[in-house]
């Protein structure tokens, strides 16, 4: 209290200093923003581990693009189509180039979230194989440029699994022999349901609620056998023998071929083929630069470097020819006609079906046990007893006071 006036001046000084700092930062920020337009930047949103980022001997694609064009690339990644969709719908950030998979491209087109491209400004796209043009998700070929593709296979640990890869089918993921050593797709209900539906021999694009319920029951049956629902830990866990089996996108095999115990099988029956395609968002501020980027990615030299790093299949014949024959001729990595003839592609589903699928998927993953209910009841009971005791104590005290 004695030093109050001193304190006052000190506080006033602090406030002033803080205010000055704040204004300074604000002004600096403004100036920075004004200077910004000289360098255009585009926001690229891609799958994790889906571009050559300079971590291997192959070139850093984004850095190379920046060097050649002077356009800055803000690169960020997502885990699955659905989180990409959530991010775009919440429109927290504007993205220029995004790389969703087939059914998500269709969904985004349907929701008017994509912009039509001018292919005359992207001459390199002419190198894309014909079979990838006018796909079912973009029938007019206006919104998307294929980036990579692949199929879903079963990754397994060679020393833990006795079946040969030729005889493997989806039901091995339900085999009680491997209890506690099976892993499943985590985040995208589409992928998880797809496997259950393929196992049941149903269409992966079914909109029949009964089919979905059957698939959910199948996954509930599988749940006790499962070690965990994971996304990116598949190879690490299988490679060291923590887990024996997991479904995953086959292309990732190259990235992880370091582990000799890791095997890859394409299921005997139906499997899922996917295409990841580059698109431009409808609200993009720099569509021209985005097209420049897509054109750059389709450049044969760049695409070869990129594919060598990411390991996914390329939709460009010229790139495939430049790959190591050991990879481009490997049947599991570059599925042949026979495998492709029995693989299906996801299609965009109506909103109701997606909602039902999400509900069922969440329910599958939620533990419904009664022990927690009992536990809470006991605690509440104890609390009530405590309340009663302390109340009676107080009443006693009061009585004591009155007498």
């Amino acid at each position: 209290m004695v030093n109050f006036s001193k304190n006052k001046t000190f506080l006033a000084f602090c406030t002033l200093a803080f205010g000055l700092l704040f204004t300074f930062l604000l002004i600096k920020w403004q100036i920075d923003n004004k200077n910004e337009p000289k360098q255009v930047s585009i926001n690229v949103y891609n799958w994790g581990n889906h571009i050559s980022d300079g971590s291997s001997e192959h070139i850093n694609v984004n850095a190379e693009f920046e060097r050649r064009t002077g356009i800055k690339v803000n690169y960020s990644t997502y885990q699955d189509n659905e989180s990409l969709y959530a991010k775009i719908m919440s429109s927290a950030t504007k993205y220029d180039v995004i790389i969703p998979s087939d059914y998500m491209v269709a969904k985004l087109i349907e929701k008017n979230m994509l912009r039509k491209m001018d292919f005359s400004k992207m001459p390199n796209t002419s190198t894309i194989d014909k079979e990838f043009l006018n796909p079912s998700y973009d029938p007019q070929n206006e919104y998307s440029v294929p980036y990579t593709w692949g199929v879903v296979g079963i990754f397994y640990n060679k020393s833990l699994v006795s079946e040969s890869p030729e005889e493997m089918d989806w039901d091995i993921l339900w085999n009680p022999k491997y209890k506690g050593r099976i892993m499943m797709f985590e985040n995208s209900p589409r992928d998880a349901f797809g496997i259950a539906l393929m196992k049941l021999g149903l269409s992966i694009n079914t909109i029949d609620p009964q089919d979905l319920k059957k698939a959910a029951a199948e996954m509930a049956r599988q749940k006790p056998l499962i070690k965990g629902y994971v996304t990116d830990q598949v190879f690490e866990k299988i490679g060291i023998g923590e887990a024996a089996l997991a479904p995953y996108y086959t292309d990732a095999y190259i990235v992880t071929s370091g582990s000799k115990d890791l095997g890859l099988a394409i299921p005997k029956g139906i499997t899922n083929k996917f295409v990841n395609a580059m698109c431009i968002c409808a609200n993009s501020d720099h569509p021209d630069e985005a097209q420049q980027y897509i054109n750059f990615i389709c450049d044969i030299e760049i695409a070869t470097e990129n594919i060598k790093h990411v390991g996914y299949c390329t939709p460009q014949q010229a790139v495939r020819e430049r790959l190591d024959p050991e990879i481009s001729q490997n049947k599991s990595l570059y599925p042949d006609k026979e495998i492709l003839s029995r693989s299906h592609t996801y299609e965009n589903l109506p909103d109701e079906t997606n909602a039902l699928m999400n509900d069922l998927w969440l329910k599958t993953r939620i533990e419904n046990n009664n022990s927690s209910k009992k536990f809470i009841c006991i605690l509440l009971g104890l609390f009530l007893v405590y309340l009663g005791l302390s109340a009676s104590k107080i009443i006693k005290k009061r009585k004591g006071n009155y007498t």
Partner: protein
Amino acid sequence: MKKRIVLSPYLVWSTIFIIAPVSLIFIFAFRDIDGNFSLSNLKNVFMYSDVFLSSLSLSIMATLACLIIGYPTAYLISRTNPKTQKLLIALIAMPMWLNFLLKTYAWMTILEDNGIINNLLFYLGLQKLKIINTQGAVVFGMVYNFITYMILPIYSVLIKTDKHIIEAAQDLGANQNKIFFKITLPLSIPGIISGVSMVFVPSVSTFILSRMLGGGTSLLIGDVIDIQFLGSVYNPWLGSAISLILMLLIFLCMAIINFFDNSKAEKEIAAF
């Protein structure tokens, strides 16, 4: 007036980053996809009542475990000499310097079926334990990550306890047990309460632990909210409704916890 000016940075901060988001949650919770007023989200929340219960019970278990481990630790630290105290508190606070995710990743490798613990048991000729991907592992993760928040408040209350009261009790012939249960423990209750709330609140709303240590097979309520916003379902309306109910639930739990503060409880009961 001066006080208000000094307070203004925080007021601005809290308006932008606390009041506005919470009001948004409130608005979203009562809307449907088309933006009309609707109670369907709140109704749908009850679909997840099982998840609420299991999250609650897991976090209560974690809080109790923290209390049982944390209180004696804080008590023993407060009894050592000041120099040792500083060192010990620094050691307790040290894990907080590391990133939460990093620590949890480390625990994943330690607790795995072929992890360090199980390998050790194997070499000793003992049976391997199933630790990871159980609810126990999730509770363990909560305890490990949040125990600091239990120890520090209890410790700071304990060192402030007036030594003269204890000396007076000793003079009057009270033994160690009696001093602890009649003086130290009751006086440290405010510390316990803030510790309990600081452990309970983050553990009830945690959302990554169950996926990392629980293998994603038993989602907690935090995961369900996360999925509504960023995961496979884009349903921020339902997510907001769940968050709202969770907030109410936490308020309720805090009220219950506060009842254990004798002085406050007496007032409240007397008010009836």
